């Protein structure tokens, strides 16, 4: 897969997004988990990314204004 040996943490960083998106191949997933098992430094960064995703989703989700909800309901086309 790779041409030259690579810094394992740099490689693990590359795999982080696809790992958390569950799109790595089985072989890559095992490889990432093997590294994470023994590397606290990368493990913290993976956990951070997971927390960040959840946090961003929560913090930017604003409830819809109720006035808007009423306006939408009023757009319905009456049944004849």
């Amino acid at each position: 897969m790779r041409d030259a040996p690579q810094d394992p943490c740099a490689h693990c960083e590359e795999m982080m997004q696809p790992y958390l998106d569950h799109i790595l191949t089985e072989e890559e997933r095992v490889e990432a988990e093997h590294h994470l098992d023994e590397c606290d430094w990368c493990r913290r960064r993976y956990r951070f990314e997971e927390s960040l995703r959840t946090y961003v989703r929560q913090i930017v989700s604003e409830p819809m204004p109720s006035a808007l909800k009423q306006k939408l309901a009023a757009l319905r086309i009456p049944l004849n």
Partner: protein
Amino acid sequence: MRFEEEALALSDQVYRVARHLASSRDEADDLVQETYARAFRSWRSFTPGTNLRAWLLRILTNLNIDRGRRTQRAPQTTPLEANDYYLYDKLAEADGGADEERVVERLSQDDIVSALSAVPHDFRDVIVLVDIGDFSYQDAAQILDIPIGTVMSRLHRGRRILKRELAESVLEDAS
């Protein structure tokens, strides 16, 4: 359930995405109303049993583009990306070993909202749909009318751009 009721039941989810695809609250408000008005008029073009949420979002993103949002797009320079660990490194540096959940909480709502709006549209659309709206890659590809591989690469790069923007805003706050 009538089509209209089904569509209205999804309005919170539609709004959540619209809020960050549009550049302001007012614009999101208009966009959602226009989307529903159009959806109610053209309900016959919806195929029952298919994804109604994605169908509504397709209308919404098209309206957003029609409104000329694309004319204000960011300059065609390549946006700056950071490595994936960059933001954590910057935050943890200041925090000296706090746990990861704590570190995340150093980011304020303002930091995140403004960092997100600084991400160029093409990347932001995908982040908003997938990471905030919970759409699959497949749905995002259909909504934006781009190949699924493009969704994935924009998402990947977009998150890195977002993290760089976040790191910058945190560094500014600290200075």
